Structure formats: structure tokens, C-alpha cells
């Protein structure tokens, strides 16, 4: 059973956006100018970040992955949200309050 706060949190992640000012290189390097941190992402991670930057909704991104890769929906669902949480933890997500 989902608690209310959990539900709110999930909605927040559903509409998560990536910070506008981060730099993305095609080889999978991410640089956050506001913190000076850099990251490496694998190709699928890079693809997701680019789609997020283009403000694509979560449902569309998941569908895109399912179409492109040999994988089941449950795994995509699980891994996608885990990835979003990692972006959030690494302070790469934009303030969702402002986006809403």
C-alpha cells in the first residue's frame, strides 16, 4: 500500500527534470558546472539523460527503451526509477517545485 508521502514522492520523480546547465558529452561524460562534479554514464544512461534534458515525460522514455532494447517492462521500470534517484542523489535534477 502506498502511503501519501510515498505517492507524492513518486509523482515528483515522474516529472523530474535535469538541470539546464549541465554539460553532456557524446562519450558519456557529464559535468555539473554549479558543483564542479563530473560523472561517467553508460550509453543507455546517456540516452536517458538526453531525453530528460529534452523534457520528455517518463512514460515516453520508458517506451523508447523498451522499443530499442531486448528487455522486459518490469526491469525497465525498476532500473529507470533507480537511475532517476541516482541523478537526484548526485544533484543533477532541477528543482521540481519550480518546474511544476
Amino acid at each position, binding site marked *: 500500500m502506498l502511503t501519501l508521502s510515498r505517492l507524492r514522492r513518486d509523482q515528483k520523480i515522474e516529472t523530474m527534470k535535469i538541470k539546464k546547465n549541465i554539460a553532456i558529452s557524446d562519450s558519456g561524460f*557529464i559535468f555539473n558546472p554549479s558543483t564542479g*562534479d*563530473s*560523472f*561517467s*554514464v*553508460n*550509453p*543507455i*544512461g546517456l540516452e*536517458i539523460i538526453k531525453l530528460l534534458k529534452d523534457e520528455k515525460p517518463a512514460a515516453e522514455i520508458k517506451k523508447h527503451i523498451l*522499443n*530499442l*532494447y*531486448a*528487455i522486459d517492462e518490469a*526491469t525497465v521500470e525498476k*532500473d*529507470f526509477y*533507480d*537511475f532517476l*534517484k*541516482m*541523478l537526484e*542523489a*548526485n544533484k*543533477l535534477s532541477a528543482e521540481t517545485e519550480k518546474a511544476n
Partner: protein
Amino acid sequence: MAKLQYERPLIQKLNTGTMNKFGTRTEYRPHTEIDGAKVEALMKEFGSPLFVISEKTIRDKFNDANRAFKTRYPKVQFAWSYKTNYIAAVCNVYHQLGSWSEVVSGFEYNKALKSGVPGNKIIFNGPDKTVEELKLAIENSSLIHIDHLDELYTIIELTNEIKKRPKVAIRVNMDTGIYPMWDRFGFNYENGQAWDAINKIVLTDKMDLVGLHCHIGTFMLAPSAYGVAAAKLSELALAIRKKYGKTIQYLDMGGGFASKNTLKGSFLPGTDTTPPIDDYAEAITTSILNAGFLEEELPTLYLETGRALIDEAGYLLGTVISNKRLSDGRKATIMDFGVNILFTAFWYDHKITPAQEFSHYTENSVMYGPLCMNIDVVRENVTLPPMKKGDHVVVHTVGAYNMTQWMQFISLRPAVVMVDLQGKAHLIRKRETLSNIDASEEMPGYLKEFKL
């Protein structure tokens, strides 16, 4: 259009300037074969988890150790330390290579006899030998290494009923500059206990004192400690020769050489820090050769090397059950094997590699076993490619102590296979079944029935 191979999306923060304690290893290079046997095929045929022993590695390591000692000293005899791994097929490889047996219990003693090792080629160590076991060992002319005075008195008593002179050695413990000192087993060198035992043995004249034994510790990273131990045992042997005119036939240096595992908490991997076997051989043989023995009275050097010979020959294959994100953001990977069968995870950061090809992207993860307990941690931190449910891993350097100290806890113990020199896998220990466990249980009649 064919779909692309999926990999979990990953993001890893790059730490510039500081050396990543975990990222410098090449652990994540996939390990798909063991001596020509495909890991995937082995798991398909024998299940997961699965222990795999490389016969080639056993032979290579043994031949290398044998060479290191025999090129430095004229009389060397290895005795396979059963407790390290006493699966009969494993023991037989060592026996084929010329190793005797070193045992520490009646169970191990009988296992060696059953495998066909002649009684006079069994070294019987350990503090707990029963009267029956001692009788058998005396009858078989086995080498009985006396651990304490109670055992010595028992043997003296037994010589009244058995008309055979027991062949004995005493286990000596001593200060070799290593802390903590193992003074729990045998007789102490420095405080005169060893002499006390020697005097009793020689003066009662009921048994032959043929050797002196020591085992100064395990996973000893300092070869110099062996140099000290060998010098002290030599000194004792020469003093016995002088005092009683008796020649000590052998010095047994026990086991304890380090394997190439990485001890928990050490910064560098074991492959960089473990001394080569030649360093131990050099320290020991130099001490004995310089001690002052007459050439014709040089004692035979016995070695009971365990982990340094077998550890690298053992692999554990396992499967990912699930991935989790811990509350602090760390990734956790749950495997189908835990500390129940990988006891040495308490001592070592075992090298773990994936068993299938991945991209070169990696992430740090804590690796858990399947037991419902907090202590069930296989690795506190391991760098691996993004693994998903059903993916396979290879745990390296697990040949020593796991297949003897494993627990039948919660689940049944896995099968063990040996890959021969042609790359063919042989089942050498079957996966345990419920009936193996049931067979030793008894049900009191009044508890047979219940209604729920």
C-alpha cells in the same frame, strides 16, 4: 530490426585527484572459462552455486613449491594438510604428486587411510586424539605429533599393551617475532616446556622421538619468521643429538604460507603483497643449512602447506538474485551464495569477476549473500559491471578452507567439480539433498503425528 543488448543505466561520479581504492583493479574483466571449461556450461550442467577446482592449478602450484624447496635443500617431503580441503579427489591429486597426509582428527586420519595412504605416511597432529585413534596410529607406525603432556602420558600407557614403539615428534611453539604468538598448541620453546617433554620421551624409552614440529601461524606474510622458527627447531635438534646422542630425522615446519588472497583492510591486493614461495623456501632452508648439522645427519624437511597450494585452484560460481538500492544510496547485489559456503569472506576481499561479457562501465556495490542475517556480506565494496538478476559471477581464490568449513545453514551445500588437464569437468562432490540431512535425524514416536 534486432533489439540492442540491454544494460542497466549507470552513473558514476568521477573522483579526480584521489586514487580510487576500489577502481584500480581489473576485477570486472569477464572470466568465462576455467582451464577450457566454459563457466556458463558448468553452471548449466551442475547448477548454481558451484565450486570448481582446477587440477592444473593444483599441479602447477605444487610443482612450483616443490621446486622452490628441492632446489635449495636435499630432503623435502610435503604432507597434504587435509583440513584445508579434504575432498577425496583433491587429496588424491596431491597424493599422485607425492604428498603424504597431515591430519588433525580421527575423522581425517580415517579419511586418509580410506584413500589408500599408508599409515606410516600420515602425520597425526592436533590436541584431540582419542585413545582408540592413538592405538590405531601406533599400530600403523604413523607419525604422532604430541601436543600436550596428557597425550604423552596416554601414549606411554598404551606402550604397555601395544608391542610396538610409537614414532613421535613434539609440537613446539615459540616466539618468532610475530604477534600474536601461537602458544596454545604444543610445548613452548623459550620456557623449557619443550625440553621437559623431550626428557620424558627419551628417558622413559618407550617411543622413538623422530621429529620436531612447529606451525607458527597461518597466512604469514613474513618469511623471516620461518627463518627464526627453523633456526630454533634446528638448535633443539642439535641439542638433543648432543645430550642424548639421538639424531632427529625430520623437522616439520607446518603450514601457514600466504596465498594470493587480499586480507580485509589491506590497501594493496594480495597478488602484490604475498611473498613468492621461494622467499619462504630461502628463509627455512638457509636456517637449517647454517645450523651446523653434519651432512649425513641433515634432517628431512617436512612441509604441511595448505592454503598457499590450493587457494588459487578453487573458484565459486554464483548467480545474482537481485539488485537493491540501500537507504544511503549504495547499490547492493544479492547473490545465491553467502558466508554459509564462503566462510573465507570473513577474512578476505575475494576477487569477484562477472562470468559474461559486459561493456566497460562499472559501479561500486556491496555484495550480500542470501542468508537472512546481517553478517552475510560477501564483499563490502566491489566494482562490477551493472549486473542483473540471473547474471553469473566467478569468485576467485576460494580453494582453501571453504569446502571444509562450509555450513549446512538454511540451504544445502553445493556441488564441487574438478576440471581436469583436458578441460573436462568431473563431479567430485554431489550437491547435498534433503535426504542427506534427514538420514541422520531421528523422530521420537510420540512426536510423529500432529494436526494443524
